[in-house]
C-alpha cells in the first residue's frame, strides 16, 4: 500500500516538473520574435545575396535587386513574387512547379517564353514563403537607414560585419575616430 501511494506522488512531482518546464519553454517561445522562422528562410534561400541583409538591394555587379525597405508590395504580392519570381529580371522563382504545374501571373512556361525567370537554388514551401514575407513586412519594409541593432539582430555578435553601424547616430554630425570610449 505504501509503495502504491508513493508511486503516484513521484509521478505527480515528475509531472509537475515537466509541466513547469513546458510552461517555461512556452513562455520563452512566446517572447521570441515570431518572424524568426522567416529570418531563417531569408538566410537559407539567400535572399540577402542580392537584397542584402538590410533589404536595400541596390545596383551593383549583379544588376539591380529592388529595395525591400522601399517596397510597396502587400504580403500577398510578396508571396507571389517569391513563389513566381519576376519575369525578365534576375529574381528567381522559389516554388516547385511554378509555370509548370502552377501557372504564374496566368502564364505557363510556354507563355512566359524568354522572360522565364531562373529557378532558385532552393524551393520553399508555401508556409516558408509566408514566413519570409512576414519577416520582410515586420523588419524591413518601410524602415529607414539600417541600424546597428537591426544588423546584430540579423548576424549576431560574432562578426565585425555590423561595426560600421555602431557610431551611426540618427542626428548625425560626428564621425567616430575609432577610439574606444
Amino acid at each position, binding site marked *: 500500500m505504501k509503495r502504491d501511494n508513493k508511486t503516484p506522488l513521484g509521478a505527480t512531482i515528475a509531472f509537475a516538473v515537466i509541466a513547469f518546464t513546458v510552461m517555461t519553454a512556452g513562455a520563452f517561445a512566446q517572447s521570441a520574435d515570431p518572424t524568426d522562422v522567416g529570418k531563417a528562410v531569408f538566410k537559407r534561400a539567400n535572399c540577402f*545575396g542580392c537584397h542584402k541583409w538590410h533589404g536595400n538591394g541596390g*545596383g*551593383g*555587379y549583379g544588376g*539591380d535587386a529592388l529595395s525591400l525597405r522601399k517596397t510597396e508590395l502587400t504580403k500577398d504580392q510578396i508571396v507571389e513574387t517569391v513563389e513566381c519570381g519576376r519575369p525578365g529580371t534576375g529574381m528567381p522563382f522559389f516554388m516547385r512547379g511554378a509555370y509548370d504545374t502552377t501557372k504564374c501571373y496566368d502564364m505557363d512556361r510556354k507563355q512566359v517564353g524568354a522572360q522565364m525567370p531562373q529557378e532558385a537554388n532552393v524551393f520553399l514551401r508555401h508556409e516558408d514563403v509566408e514566413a519570409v514575407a512576414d519577416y520582410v513586412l515586420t523588419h524591413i519594409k518601410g524602415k529607414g537607414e539600417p541600424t546597428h541593432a537591426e544588423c546584430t539582430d540579423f548576424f549576431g555578435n560574432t562578426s*565585425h*560585419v555590423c*561595426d560600421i553601424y555602431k557610431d551611426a547616430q540618427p542626428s548625425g554630425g560626428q564621425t567616430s575616430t575609432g577610439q574606444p570610449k
Partner: protein
Amino acid sequence: MKTFARRRLSLQVAMFASVAAAALIASAPARADDVTPERLLNSAKEPGNWLLHHQNYSATRFSTLSEINKDNVKNLKVAWTMQLGGVEGGGIWTHGGLEGTPIVDNGFMYVTDGWGSVYKIDAHGGKGVLLWKMDPKTDHDWAGAVACCGVDNRGVALWGNLVISHTLDGRLIATNKDTGQVAWQRQVADPNKGEVITGAPLIVKNMAITGVAGAEYGIRGWIAATDLNTQKEVWRTYTIPGKGEPGSDTWKDSQNAAASGGGSTWVTGSYDPATNTLIWGVGNPGPDWDNAYRPGDNLYTDSSLALDADTGKIKWHYQHTPNDPYDYDSVAENVLADVPGANGSTTKIALEADRNGFAYAIDRTNGKFLWGLPFVKKVTWTKGLDPETGKPAEYDPNKQVQTYNASVTPSRTNKVTDICPGNMGGKNWPPTAYNPQLKLWYIPVIESCNRITVEEMTKDKLKPREFWTGGGPSQPVKITGSITAIDVTTGKIAGKFETPFPNLGGILATPDLVFSGQPSGEVQAVDAKTMQKLWEFNTGGGVNAPPMTFSVDGKQYIAILVGLGGAWDKWFIDATPELKRMQPGSMLYVFAL
C-alpha cells in the same frame, strides 16, 4: 626505482632538448631550407621549385622543366589528388572557390583555399600527405559581404621559415613553416571601408607587398609594404593621389570623387631587381560605369604603376583607359621581358594584357608606350590605339568626360548599351605566361560582349560597404575564350587555341608546352608553337586557377587547383549557361608521366 630513474633521466633529456630548441628558435639561425631574399632573386637556379606567385619576379610563369614535353605529354596521368576545404559561403556568396597558385619548396607544397586557410602538403614519394592546415578563421560575413567577385585567395609566399598569406578580411599572416602555428598577424586592409584582400603577397627583400580589392565599394586603392622583421608598415602608396600631389588634377569634379575613386591592386605585381622597381597593375575607377561622376583622366586608375621598392615612390605610370566608363581595369600582372632591339640592343619591356582587350608593351625603364594590339577578336569601344601614344584613338585630353566610340559607350545619355569586350574584360586576373626561349606570350582570353546599364550616381548614394558601381552588367551574349599567343619580337598574334568557354584560370608555359584549364573541367596541354591540343584531362570541376609545375625526387609534376568560384558563377553565368551544371568543389590535382 630503475624505472623511475630512467624516467627522470628521459625527462631531463627532454627538458634539455626543449631548452636547446628554444635557444635555437630565439637565435633563429638561417636554415638551408629557409627562403632568403637571395633565393628569391635567383629562383631560376631552382627549376624544381616554384618559390614566387608568378614563378619568378618577372612574372613569366615559365618553367624550364622538360621531363614532360610535347612528345610524351599524351601519357600524362593523375598522380594524386587532395580534397581541400573552404567551399562554404559567407556574406553575399553561397560558396567559395579556388584561384590560387601552389608554391613548392623542396617537395613541400603550400596552397590556400578561398577563405585563406593554408595547407602544407608533403609531395615526396609520388603522393601527397597533408602535414598541417592553418585556418585563419576569416570573418565570413564581414569580408564576404564586400567581396565583389568571390571568396578568393590566390596563394602564399615564403620568407625565412614563415609562410606569408592574406585573408579576405584584410590580414597579413605569418605561419611557422614547420608547425603550422601562426607566428604573428597584422591587419593591413579594412573591410569596414569595403577593403578586402584576394591576391598573394609578393616578398621583396624583407618586405611583404600587399594589394587591395574594393573598387566596387568606393575605396581609395593602395599598395602597402610590411617589414617582416618588425611587422610594421614600411610604406603605403595610394593609387589615387591626394590633394596637391602629382596627378590629383586628373580628378576635375567638385565633390571629391577621388576619395572613393577605386584603383584597387588585387593582382600580385612583378619586380625588376636591376632598378629596384615594383611594377603593379591598378584597377578601375569608381563608380565603374558613371564616368561623368568623376570627370578627368582619373589617375592612376587603369594604369601600370612603377614604384621604388624601398619607398613606394611612384617612378612612372602608363594609363590604358583614361576616364574609364567600362570597368576595364589594368590590375593584370606586368610580365618583364628583355627582347632584341635595333642594332643589337636589348629592349626592357613590360607586357600587360588589359581588360580593355588590348595587349601592351611598355618600356619598363621609363613607362613609354612601345606597341599594342587587340588580343580579342571583337573590340567595339574604340577603333584602335594611337600608334604613337597607345591611347585609344578617340581619346581627347581636353575632354573632361571621355566617350570613345560614343554609340556603344555607357553614359548618362546612353544608359543601356552592349560593349565588347564585356566588363569581365578580354582578360581578367588569370595570369599570362611568357616563354623567353620562343619569345611567345600566352594570354588567357575571355572572348566577350555584355550589356551595361548605367545608374547616375550622386554623393548621397555613397555608403560604406555598399556597392558604388553606377550601374551593372547583364549577359545577353554567349561568351567563349582562347589562349592567344603573341610574338613579342613583332608585336603580332602568332596563334590562337580557341575554347568553348572563357579562360578563367590562367597559363603555365614550359619549353615546348602551354598548360591551362577550362571552367567546364578540362585541364589541357597545347603545343607551344602550333597551339594544337596535345593532351586533356577532365577534372570534373570548374578550373578557376592557374597550373604550375615542380619536381621532387627527380620527377616532374603539374599541379592545379580545381573549384569554380570567383565572380563568374554569380555575375556572369548567364553568358555560359552550360556552366550552371558545374558544382562547387575544392580539389588539388597533381599530374605526372
